[in-house]
């Protein structure tokens, strides 16, 4: 009893001395994301938050092939591992409808955070649900798109340039269309350079998670692919299997068969980076997020590398990557997590984020003087973000994605059926999903 009294007196004394209330206690926040280069940059950046706020940060980074599995299991089971989650753009529908993410509108209003300060495409893709509505479940954290990089030193060699001119009748330069891209890749396929056989390009063909879909949509979008005839109608016949979509899919298969290294049947980000860094390919597709690391690579970076946006065909189009940062609804530390978001949204923090290798989506960074000159890929990034398209962001996105993975891999890699048949089957699969969802 005496101890109890002492404790009460002590507590009252401390409170009177002006110590922070219980809600402002230092917390240990856990931020979950994929394990890749930008995650390391975020660890570095977050040290400032720790110093300013008194909170400490822990990180749970999961390799990309397991990221969706691991994190969606965590959310679906109401897990408390993550206080903050930088989740993929396609998760926003499920995150919002299933109550996994905290709705941020009131918080943004009270803290004066304006979505108008962020690039429109990123707000639309990473933050809103239903799409385009002013209901925000994430703050744009990492802008990203699928782009290309190539061996600038090979492109500059006179003997190679002469051979290319002789073969195609035009100068060897960054492609301005998808068909030029294929032509260049085919030119390099099987060519001897410095005594080594090299190949055209590394593209995405991975079966298990999202790889081949992300690769193929990089061809579909420039051809003018649409998911629905009318947005929100789920009317896919004639859109998903349009003649343009069929042509784009046939193009991607030809690319795979004629311009990629042998054994490139199940390849995604890591394989693309390895193929390029080992000097195996002349070009490679990958996410802009990797470009700072590629440029810094001592063997194939610097003067030897350059970058270009996904080339247009019938129109400009790039596959959207990137993520928004959300507060997990099951977290017991939501106040501290919101503090982190408030801190992260500041223009000076966003500028540091870009400097460290993260892709800020804040207009103060993207529209700032000298942004385009700040990195050799910065201009391409801006161009890509002007024409990005994303996969379905529906709550049932995983079913939609896996159906596409299967149909595309069956056609492109396993060489089964025609492009039209693959897209027709895809419509059947997607129709079944939307029927189950009660949307058709």
């Amino acid at each position: 009893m005496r101890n109890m009294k002492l404790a009460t007196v002590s507590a009252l004394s401390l409170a009177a001395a002006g110590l922070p209330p219980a809600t402002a206690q230092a917390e240990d926040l856990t931020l979950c994301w994929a394990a890749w280069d930008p995650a390391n940059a975020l660890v570095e950046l977050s040290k400032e938050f720790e110093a300013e706020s008194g909170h400490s940060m822990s990180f749970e980074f999961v390799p990309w092939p397991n990221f969706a599995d691991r994190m969606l299991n965590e959310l679906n089971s109401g897990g408390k591992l993550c206080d903050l989650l930088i989740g993929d753009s396609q998760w926003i529908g499920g995150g919002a409808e299933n109550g996994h993410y905290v709705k941020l509108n009131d918080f943004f209003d009270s803290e004066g955070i304006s979505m108008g300060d962020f690039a429109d495409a990123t707000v639309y893709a990473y933050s809103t649900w239903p799409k385009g509505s002013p209901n925000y479940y994430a703050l744009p954290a990492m802008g990203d798109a699928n782009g290309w990089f190539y061996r600038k030193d090979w492109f500059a060699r006179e003997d190679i340039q002469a051979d290319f001119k002789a073969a195609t009748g035009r100068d060897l330069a960054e492609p301005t269309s998808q068909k030029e891209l294929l032509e260049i890749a085919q030119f390099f396929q099987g060519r001897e350079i410095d005594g080594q056989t090299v190949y055209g390009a590394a593209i995405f063909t991975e079966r298990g998670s999202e790889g081949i879909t992300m690769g193929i949509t990089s061809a579909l979008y420039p051809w003018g692919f649409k998911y629905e005839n009318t947005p929100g109608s789920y009317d896919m016949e004639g859109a998903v299997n349009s003649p343009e979509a069929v042509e784009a899919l046939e193009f991607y298969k030809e690319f795979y068969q004629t311009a990629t290294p042998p054994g490139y049947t199940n390849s995604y980000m890591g394989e693309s980076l390895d193929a390029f860094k080992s000097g195996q390919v002349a070009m490679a597709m990958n996410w802009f997020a990797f470009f700072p690391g590629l440029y810094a690579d001592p063997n194939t970076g610097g003067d030897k590398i350059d970058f270009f946006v996904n080339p247009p065909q019938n129109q400009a189009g790039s596959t959207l990557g990137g993520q928004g940062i959300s507060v997990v609804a099951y977290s017991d530390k939501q106040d501290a997590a919101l503090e982190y978001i408030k801190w992260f949204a500041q223009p000076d923090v966003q500028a540091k984020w870009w400097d460290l290798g993260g892709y800020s989506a804040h207009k103060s960074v993207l529209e700032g003087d000298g942004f385009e000159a700040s990195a050799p890929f910065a201009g391409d990034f801006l161009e890509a973000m002007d024409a990005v398209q994303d996969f379905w962001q529906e709550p049932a996105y995983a079913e939609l994605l896996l159906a596409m993975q299967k149909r595309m891999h069956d056609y492109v890699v396993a060489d089964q059926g025609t492009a039209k048949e693959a897209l027709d089957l895809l419509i059947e699969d997607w129709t079944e999903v939307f029927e189950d969802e009660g949307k058709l």
Partner: protein
Amino acid sequence: MSQTTLDQAAQATPPRAARRIKGLSDRAIAWIFVGPTIFLLLAINIFPLIWTINLSFTNFKANRANRAVEYIGFRNYERILTDSDIWLSMQATAHFLFWTIFFQVLIGFTLAWLINKKFKGNDLWTTIIVLPMMLSPAVVGNFWTFLYQPQIGLFNYVVAFFTGADPSSFEMLGSVNLAPWSIVIVDTWMWTPFVMLICLAGLRSIPDYIYEAAEIDRASKLRQFFTITIPMVLPFLMLAVLFRGIENFKMFDLVVQLTGGGPGSVTELASINLKREAFEKWRTGYSSAFAIILFVTVFGLASIYVKALNKVKER
């Protein structure tokens, strides 16, 4: 000595407790011993099974806990049994199952027969042969993907050495025709030693005097093999087939590591398909029905097989 210990234990037991235990029937004491096991069995086997059967008649999705769950009768079963993709995965499973068992029994028995001969270094060879089955399937899958790599893979170079083909002219994991065989090769490499060990146990259980009697009767080596060795090892072989059959019917890790079910879906075995439906697409009701179908299939086949095995043993 044990009597003394029992007496001491009896004396140390407090009188009331002793009376209580003394009053229990044999059946009650048996229940006390068996009860915890039965409880665990019910909790971790029977209850989930019943719950899975229940879910298989619903449209439940584990990632959509807020959505109303509807009972849809046999619709999930109907969809599965009429789904051509499911049948393709069952076909892939059957191909994998048949050929892995065929090769493992053939090679495993041959190795056991050779090892059973007494020669110098016999033990060392046995140890070397059983090494693959001691490795983790994830490790095996990973290094075989390198061995199968068309540009640098040792497997392709060995094949090229014997056939004269260009090593990078064929892709074991990327070709629709070769990928199903590539997983058969790896599983055979890994699990043949297991079959060999069981066969070896069978061979060593045959008493020498039977062969000696056969020699006296002037039975040829071939006749001894077919009339003594094979019949006496058969129960062991059948046991090995049962173990490998059940294991390979639910094969997942090794194949996922090697091909991920690809190219396309040619190596997407039933278990991989089931995992995708249950934990990637989150079609819990549908995947429960699929799991029940697989369970009934394995259980039914295994029951028939065990009966056959018992008959062979009785002979």
